[in-house]
């Protein structure tokens, strides 16, 4: 009797140990069965926006990289700025720079995510939603490649998902990359809806106008102003009735999100904490932007506007007829109102360095994207304010430049004055005392001035400087440390070290 019991026990034990060794990961769906329908494509596209929103890109390093490479910024707190950021600001960065590496990685992670969508989405049953999602994917891919090619030059080009470790690509010519960007944006224009047709629940998704605006930027960077004008004209004449809003500052507030001037913005919301979410993989509930904490008068204030930028604003001390109201809309001076006008900013609220402005030493900080417009100086925090990547004012200013380049001075000046005469700004039209517009060069100077004061701190100027420098359009070199190598960023060392297609000989010269 006993022995049978034992046999039963042992057989049971044995059965247990004979279980299959094939255990599938239950924590997600296998990649091979995904991207099969509209819903999955939509979720996947959201995943692409998520990485655009992450810390590597628009939540942090993207704005730092652009801002620190422009001439718009100074240290706000002496040694407070972390070393890798200081290196970008001082032009001493090398191939291991953290900020630059993060943007590079973020762009390529975005590209990988959308490559999967575009590759697999082609097999999903055709529908308008599917095409829209593919259009968004193409827009995002073009956005990422334009970041890469405009700042690093020749970069590896991937338009399909990489399946193997040795599937790496070498550096690809800029022409090929631009061709890919243009192809994506042309296709995206066809697939994407107009802004007016994007429902409230889809705000934040790319539109036809966003693709056109981006393509305009790309053509201008390629020195093709005629094609740029074609694209930008489409935006001007879009049925979405885009316009310059009266309240300039509302472009940088939570309340002004997706206003009539908005073309493309990256959404943030006061959900959870910031969590320094690296690649959008730290789980849900960390949707805040860290911009206010980094730049605001109360906060780390690591970065403040450069004196050069402040000086660019028109005011009577420079002989201008009127002080540009955008000065105090863009920057917060000690003594300016905060917290919906119920308080003023005190000197003791603000840490760090002063700026010399009109001979006065005063603490001046960034106001764009700062939460102080509706809060008092009680600490600092990350916010839910969206980051506006494209707005109508830039389209107008780009068109002004295109018209000027295409020798249509009247149109150019008209566009410039559109910006100035809107109610909230209400600046006297060009020509002005300091900005005559009697010839093409003078008009270009006015455009450069207007673009700098209108779009300061909006990650536009870095690329403008790169472009104007290349095209010989700068009156003088705006970057104090500039040497030939600074035209391009170095290829990240981790890319060179881990790619079988690259060696140090492939590095951009000077690094």
């Amino acid at each position, binding site marked *: 009797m006993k*022995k049978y019991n034992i*046999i039963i*026990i*042992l057989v049971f*034990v*044995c059965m247990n*140990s*004979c*279980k*299959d*060794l094939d*255990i*599938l990961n239950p*924590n*997600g769906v296998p990649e*091979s069965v*995904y991207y099969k329908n509209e819903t999955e494509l939509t*979720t*996947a596209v*959201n*995943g692409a*926006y998520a990485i655009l*929103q992450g810390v590597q890109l628009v939540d942090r390093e993207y704005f730092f990289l652009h801002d620190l490479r422009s001439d718009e910024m100074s240290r706000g707190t*002496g*040694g*407070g700025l*972390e*070393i*890798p950021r200081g290196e970008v600001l*001082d032009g001493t960065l*090398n191939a*291991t720079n953290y900020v630059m*590496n993060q943007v590079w990685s973020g762009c390529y*992670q*975005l590209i990988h*995510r959308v490559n999967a969508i575009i590759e697999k989405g082609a097999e999903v049953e055709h529908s308008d939603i599917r095409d829209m999602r593919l259009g968004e994917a193409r827009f995002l891919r073009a956005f990422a490649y334009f970041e890469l090619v405009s700042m690093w030059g020749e970069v590896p080009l*991937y338009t399909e998902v990489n399946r193997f*470790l040795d*599937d790496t690509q070498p550096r690809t010519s800029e022409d090929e990359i631009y061709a890919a960007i243009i192809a994506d944006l042309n296709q995206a224009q066809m697939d994407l809806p107009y802004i007016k047709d994007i*429902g409230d629940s889809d705000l*934040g998704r790319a539109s036809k106008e966003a693709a056109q605006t981006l393509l305009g930027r790309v053509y201008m960077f390629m020195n093709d102003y005629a094609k740029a004008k074609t694209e930008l004209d489409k935006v001007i004449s879009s049925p979405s009735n885009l316009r310059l809003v009266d309240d300039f500052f509302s472009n940088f507030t939570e309340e002004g999100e997706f206003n009539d001037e908005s073309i493309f913005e990256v959404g*943030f919301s006061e*959900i*959870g904490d910031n969590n320094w979410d690296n690649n*959008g993989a*730290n*789980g*849900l*509930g960390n949707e805040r932007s860290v911009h206010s904490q980094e730049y605001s008068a109360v906060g780390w204030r690591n970065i403040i506007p450069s004196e050069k930028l402040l000086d660019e604003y028109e005011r009577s001390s420079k002989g201008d007829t009127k002080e540009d109201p955008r000065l105090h809309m863009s920057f917060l001076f000690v003594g300016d109102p905060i917290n919906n006008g119920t308080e003023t900013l005190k000197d003791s*609220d*603000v*840490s*760090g*360095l002063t700026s010399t402005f009109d001979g006065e030493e005063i603490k001046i900080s960034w106001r764009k994207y700062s939460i102080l417009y509706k809060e008092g100086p009680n*600490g*600092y*925090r990350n916010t839910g304010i969206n980051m506006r990547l494209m707005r109508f004012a830039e389209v107008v200013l780009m068109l002004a430049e295109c018209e000027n380049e295409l020798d249509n001075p009247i149109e150019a000046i008209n566009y410039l004055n559109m910006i100035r005469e809107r109610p909230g700004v209400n600046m006297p039209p060009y020509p002005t005392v300091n900005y005559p517009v009697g010839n093409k060069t003078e008009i270009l100077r006015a455009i450069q001035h207007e673009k700098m004061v209108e779009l300061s701190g909006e990650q536009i100027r870095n690329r403008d400087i790169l472009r104007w420098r290349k095209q010989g359009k700068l009156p003088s070199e705006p970057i104090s*440390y500039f040497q030939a190598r600074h035209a391009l960023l170095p290829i990240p060392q981790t890319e060179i*070290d*881990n790619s079988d297609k690259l060696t140090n000989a492939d590095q951009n010269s000077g690094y």
Partner: protein
Amino acid sequence: MSKNYCLLRIALLIILVGVAPLVLRAQDLLVSGKVTENDSGASIPGVNIVVKGTGQGTVTNYEGNYSINVPENAILVFSSVGYVTEEIQVNNQTKIDVSLVTDITALSEIVVVGYGTQKSESITGAISSVSSKEIAALPVPSIESALQGRVPGVSVVNNGSPGTAPIVRIRGIGSISYAANPLYVVDGIVVQGGLNNFDTKDIASVDVLKDASAAAIYGSRAANGVIMISTKKGSDSGLHVDLNSYVGVQQAWKKLDLLNTDQYLTYAKTLLDNAGTDYPDRFSNMNTPIYEGADQTYAETNTDWQDEMFRNATIAQTHLSLSGGNDISKFYSSLGYFTQEGIMLGTEYERVNFRLNSDHKLSDRFTVGQNLLIAYDDRFNEMISGGRTQIKHMLHSIPYIPVHDPTQDGGFRASTAEDASNAENPVRIATMDKSNTQSFRMLTNAYLDYKLFDGLSYRFNVGIDYGLARQNITLPIYSDGFRSRPQKQLQKTHTITFSPTYTNQLTFDKSFGKNHINVIAVVESQNTTIDMLYGGGAFNSNANQELAGALNAVTSSTRNAFRLISYIGRVNYEFAGKYLLSASIRRDGSSVFAPGKKWGNFPAASVGWRISEEPFMKNLEAVSELKIRASYGLVGFNGIGAYDWQVIINSNTAAIIGGSEATGSYFDKLGNTELEWETTKMWNAGLDLGLFDNSLTFSMEVYNRDVDNLILQVPTPPSLGYAQSTTSNIGEMKNWGAEFQLGYGKATGDFTYNITGNIGFTRNEVVKLATPSSTLTAGQIADYGDNITRTEEGHPIQSFYGYVVDGIFQSEDEVFSSPSQNLPDDLADYDPSKYTGPGDIRFKDLNNDGLINADDQQYLGSYLPDFNYGLNFSANYKNFDLTLFVQGVQGSEIYNLTKFYTQATPRLFGAGVEVLDGWTPGHTNTDIPRMIDVDPNRNARVSDRFIEDGSYLRIKNLSLGYNFSENALQSFTNGKMRKLRIYVSSQNLLTLTGYSGYDPEVGSWNNNLLTGGIDYGQFPSARTFMAGLQLGF
């Protein structure tokens, strides 16, 4: 395939069970006697008595008496730690008194090897044993900590606040991308996770299997060595109660010299003046009250942040055991309580553990038994805020800032905008923010031994390892005048680990003439699931303790399942007690590898020759033991993720679309359908020598350990777009070394003493990575900018890499004429406040190109020591006993970031007094550079400036005890009390080191890979003073 094996196994078992009753049963005899010590005649309790060739046995009681039922022709093996093992033929005797010869070196003992035991003299692999006495000697919560310095070739490094598992490495580093932890086997069961829940006082022995031949029996998981732990068993000598209790106080053994308020102001002004930066507003308002209504001003405040953070911390343990039994049933049970405060605020560890072990002899054929551990512990971890250690916050805090401020929400203060500095208040973090993990652990196994016939026995063992861990993170609302947390954050993570193991084992053990053979065959399976459930959310009130009603609530869960199926065989053969041979093979199938790659074979073999048993050695009286051994084998590693070869879609991200979170999905890694076993090839050669009746013993080992097919998280080029690296068998790494152990013992009259020493040398080299130029860098934190370690072919793993200091620039001329560091193109733009200036560090131009850039970096050293050593001295004089245990490492390097915090601050923070010695035009005779905000020359870059020798020698334990004489106790307590010992003891009493940080025992912060030996301000080891008593009834 596995189905066939399965059927085979069933068939085998049916045959065995059927055959069993046919085997005849030998006549039994009750033997009893007393075991005494050879020299003193004192009785020896706890001697193991085993019927040779069986698992049957007993233990002597406290008077040294025993009794056992044995076959009339049995051979009894008497063994005890510290004595030479005796074998006695029963030959129908019923009373056998034995006197054991003292063997201080503990050579002849029973060693627990995988799936069995072996006499130490028969061992042919590299196995080191640690006795229960050594394990219990130190007041440490875990067995791992107790092993420090005890075993050559085993490195144990303290790695955090109380209750944090130390880093244990056997014979070097076996993995680059994974923690190379050894395999822990408790009472035959491979356990999950660490050993925190085990009370060191319940441990009977620890045996460390170091080489492939010893470890290969655990084949697939043995690449990093195996630590076998046996817990105490009962004896059949009546009931015994033992109480063991101590209480002590711990404190930091070292503090740094930090700036006081006046010194800080002097330093800050220099720092800012040099950079042309204005002073913070506070400097002109030092005489204002520290908060509204306070009597004290900032100028009058002088906070010593070290005194605020460090404390005298208590440590106490009480262990009560009850054991006993008769010749049928034996049991050991215990209840233990351990509590330890950390020497820094906010850290604490507490444990309650219960154990019940029992064995029952059901009949001559059947024996059953069980072991059960139930433990609960609660650990308050050091809080990490902003990715910085508490020590970093502490060193960075400003002395004129008060700790407390009742006007702030939460009552704490930190520096604010007016101070132009932003260290967090470490006392606030330690006091308010909490992260604790409560875990419940049950480890149990039950076995059935069935003696089929003489020499052949069958064992069925089932083990269950169950763990429930509940981590709570509570981050309350506060404001410190600068930072604030407007909502309370609550995060809870529950993790359930369930891991049953089923083992079927046949053992054949028999002597034929001069031949002795031992064969085992085992089939085993282990299924492990780890389920994690996370919930988190925010509240507008600090009152909420649980997640009900949380804002922005988030939940998630994951399951990781692992399965391992194994077939094991081993033959040990011994001829004439001098020629030894052992061969084993384990075939393992693991679920973690790709289909078609799941099975691996791990064979090993070893030989030994006991030369001392040869006739020609017999006239060499001095030589009591001489053995040479050699082994070779393959062991594997499968400690990777459960599903690393698979690619799944993650949905753990979201974008803000239409103002709310829209879930996003993506895949983030490259799958690998080729992922297979990693194999370590290892050879070992050893020699054991005993002289003068083993009063002097020596053993040595040399070994080589090659990891081939190394599983690497291959860093993909970022352009591939995968944030996660791909798991691939691509690397190769090698460790080699030597170990020595020496022991000497002597007894003269009332005085006995013994000394043992061990030393282990290990070298490491990375042989191959993914691509020849492939480098793995680690240690980067945004504050410093650069990576600190680099792993590259041809170098030891994670070596320090950076610039080389070449002195300090004394003049501008020298700056201009030296290789350019940070200078403008046009010297007309030169300004020493923005560029390299006098007082800055001159770095070596290693490639002589006149420019200091990334090409001027080199390897600067390794955290791996040249050798580890331990030295134990113990002596008894009459009723007094004394133990001195010294442990140390030699030749390790530490990257000292506490030095960075205290003297290289490129930002305005609190600092060490060394900054007052910084270079100035009037003070040039110094090696500390000028103090300058922003650090334009990057004096703080990764360089040998921060590399320090991490060698240390530490008096790990010094204790003095007094044993009340047994006779006196018996008469005084009417025979009730058997033992009373009182003792005082100190741990880490003295540390000799040149290291300038808090403690040279620098683990790996947060267990981050490839960052060992970087001192981010890790939790330092404490110095402890304690007193205790041991009572026996």
